[in-house]
């Protein structure tokens, strides 16, 4: 049972230590991890913003290129020759423009007059109307005095996304005679080129039909692009006035084989008289987090090591505590068996060491008590016991001067007739208890109770230089104790008790008296009889006292100032030739 408890204590300590450490480590880990995550996301987002600018720059470059192209075309003699004709030969114009597409690498070139009529067109499959997106851009450019204008539009039957640029044909500068219109497809090739420089995934999404978002161009696999498009559509549906949207990470599996999350940024771009298109820029979080993940792995290893160390330490501490506690517990069993000689040796300065010392002291105390009991077969006050043990006692029989006190209860016989036996005994014990206390308080040893009488010794078994003083002081204390008891009895509605005390000092023989089975330390001698005889004198009313002592006691007083004796006379003791002078005693 005890073993089990101690085990439990160590387990509890282990659990507590490991638990605390686990919480600390887990908190640290999660803080570090989330900080890493946040910074990776921050970094990814910054990259995306940069990517967005890169995209703008790429578009801008296309537009600038178109401007340069236009000005070159504008300065070209050939097209002016064609345009000088009235009416203009459309076939020749178209073939001129077609030759420009070869020269400048623009996929589609158109020409409009100042009234925005479509005069020439290299791609009738893409551009077939006069009041189309080009005309819109030209009108806006004319109204706003812009040197050129650009925008996005869907062209052709399949409505592919194109970047459009309109630039004037000056004749001469700054007099605008015609407008060129150039179109560039925003297709996978364009997106891939963007990805080449930035490692950012780009997806262009049309939400013209919000229920069926359309992927216009993407660097992602088609299935992934579809997820992105749906997310964009959802974002636009749920929030009106949407300009930028930060998508939640799309589950990685759908997006890439790397199995990673993508930080996503959505920019919208105005279209020519259509719903804006969404440009979705995405960057995988994995590579951003790679360094952080290494750090976190290292942190886990360190944490595991710390936990192991803590576990070992906790077990050691637990054992350090439980082992001495087990020793202490075992030692209590030793004491319980009555072995007061064995000492518990715990070489510790802590509380457990103090406990062991206390237990050893208890063993010493118990051993002494036993020894006194063995010696005297009497209960003595601890003071006397200590003195007895310190000085040793000649128990084998010794003549020595002893002051003997006899006390007798008055009126007990009458009382015993009135009270039932149980009450009587209780009252008697109560009386004896008070008297014993008073005697022991003054260093007396109760020799025996004789019915309701008490015989006590002063100066034996331990010699006391002031035995007579002590005996008389004890006798006076007994009177006071009885007065106290009487007040209590009066309160209980009982008649008061009376007492008679006789004290005599004499040389007697002290020692263990009895059979070999039962020895009893006591005194024998004439002086004992004298003490009893003196006590009996207190019954005489003419003496008017409860406390009588002999001249021998008065002579033995070390401090006679405190005692005021009153001579009562002489008494004869049976078997004794000399009479004994007796005195009534009162406190000074």
């Amino acid at each position, binding site marked *: 049972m005890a073993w089990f408890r101690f085990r439990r204590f160590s387990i509890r300590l282990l659990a507590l230590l490991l638990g605390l450490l686990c919480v600390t480590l887990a908190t640290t880990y999660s803080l570090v991890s989330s900080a890493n995550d946040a910074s990776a996301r921050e970094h990814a987002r910054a990259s995306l913003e940069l990517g967005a600018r890169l995209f703008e720059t790429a578009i801008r470059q296309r537009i600038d290129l178109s401007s340069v192209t236009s*000005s070159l075309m504008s300065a070209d003699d050939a097209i*002016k*020759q064609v*345009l000088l004709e009235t009416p203009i030969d459309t076939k020749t114009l178209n073939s001129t423009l077609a030759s420009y597409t070869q020269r400048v690498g623009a996929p589609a070139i158109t020409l409009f007059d100042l009234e925005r009529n479509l005069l020439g067109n290299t791609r009738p499959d893409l551009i077939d109307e006069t009041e189309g997106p080009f005309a819109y851009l030209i009108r806006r450019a004319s109204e706003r005095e812009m040197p050129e204008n650009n925008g996005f539009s869907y062209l052709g039957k399949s409505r592919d996304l194109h970047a459009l640029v309109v630039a004037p044909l000056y*004749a001469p500068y*700054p007099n605008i005679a015609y407008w060129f219109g150039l179109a560039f497809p925003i297709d996978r090739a364009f997106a891939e080129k963007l990805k080449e420089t930035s490692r950012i995934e780009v997806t262009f999404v049309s939400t013209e039909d919000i229920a069926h978002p359309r992927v216009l161009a993407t660097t992602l696999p088609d299935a992934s692009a579809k997820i992105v498009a749906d997310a964009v559509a959802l974002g636009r549906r749920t929030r009106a006035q949407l300009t930028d949207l930060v998508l939640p990470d799309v589950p990685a599996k759908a997006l890439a084989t790397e199995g990673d999350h993508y930080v996503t940024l959505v920019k919208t771009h105005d279209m020519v008289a259509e719903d804006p298109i969404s440009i979705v820029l995405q960057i995988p979080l994995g590579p951003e987090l790679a360094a952080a993940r290494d750090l976190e792995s290292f942190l886990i290893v360190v944490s595991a090591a710390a936990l192991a160390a803590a576990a070992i330490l906790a077990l050691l501490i637990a054992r350090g505590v439980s082992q001495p506690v087990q020793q202490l517990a075992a030692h209590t069993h030793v004491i319980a068996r009555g072995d007061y000689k064995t000492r518990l040796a715990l070489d510790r300065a802590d509380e457990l060491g103090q406990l062991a010392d206390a237990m050893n002291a208890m063993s010493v105390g118990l051993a002494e008590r036993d020894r006194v009991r063995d010696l005297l077969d009497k209960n003595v006050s601890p003071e006397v016991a200590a003195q007895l043990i310190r000085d040793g006692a000649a128990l084998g029989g010794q003549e020595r001067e002893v002051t003997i006190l006899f006390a007798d209860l008055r009126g007990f016989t009458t009382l015993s007739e009135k009270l039932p036996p149980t009450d009587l005994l209780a009252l008697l014990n109560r009386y004896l208890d008070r008297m014993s206390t008073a005697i022991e308080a003054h260093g007396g040893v109760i020799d025996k109770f004789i019915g309701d009488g008490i015989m006590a010794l002063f100066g034996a078994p331990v010699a006391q230089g002031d035995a007579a003083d002590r005996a008389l002081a004890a006798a006076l204390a007994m009177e006071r104790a009885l007065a106290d008891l009487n007040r209590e009895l009066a309160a209980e509605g009982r008649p008061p008790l009376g007492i008679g005390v006789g004290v005599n000092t004499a040389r007697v023989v002290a020692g263990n008296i009895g059979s070999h089975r039962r020895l009893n330390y006591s005194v024998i001698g004439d002086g004992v009889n004298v003490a009893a005889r003196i006590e009996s004198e207190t019954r005489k009313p003419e003496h008017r006292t409860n406390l009588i002592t002999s001249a021998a006691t008065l002579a033995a007083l070390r401090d006679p100032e405190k005692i005021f004796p009153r001579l009562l006379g002489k008494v004869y003791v049976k078997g004794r030739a000399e009479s004994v002078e007796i005195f009534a005693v009162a406190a000074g």
Partner: protein
Amino acid sequence: MRPLAFVCICAAISLRASATDVAFRLVDAVGAPVADAVVSLVALDAPAKISPPAEPLEIAQNGQEFSTFVTPLVVGTTVNFPNEDKVSHQVYSLSPAKKFVFPLYKPGTRGTVTFDQPGVVALGCNIHDWMRAYIVVLGTPLFGKSARDGTATITAVAPGFYRAEVWHPRLGKNETREISLAASDITARTESFTLALKPDRRIHRSPEGSGGGYK
């Protein structure tokens, strides 16, 4: 910020017997006079009779520039373009009012064009990008061109209703105002027009050896 200029037209009208001189004063926003603006009066009562000059006008090419920047004239006027330069020119127009080109012509030769439709004709040269001139072909004989001090005067205008028109290369649209000239008007009137001019964009002539560019 593109500078805004305003043309203020002050028409000072003075009566002389049955005809009045109409003076225009053209000022931009900051009060600077505006030169090379074409002012004209279009009669609203009865169309004025147009009689193109018998002798052709002349816009010469000299020092790789046109001799005149702005030339107002009436429909039917013929203009000669003599090359008085040291280099060849290839003057052209792609303006709807008159499209033409003089294939590369050497110094000492000339091109000739008759402007038979009203409208503005922007002249350029395929050899020299900075060369630029305007011919404003008008359907009214009442016109003038502002001088450096920003004034232009149309003399001997008969009483009646007119539409005053102002054209300038840097105006997006002609500025117009209807005015009434009564026979009893004997005192000159002053009227003000406020017009926005586009920024002055032009190709700066390249120094020898280096390329030119738009500005």
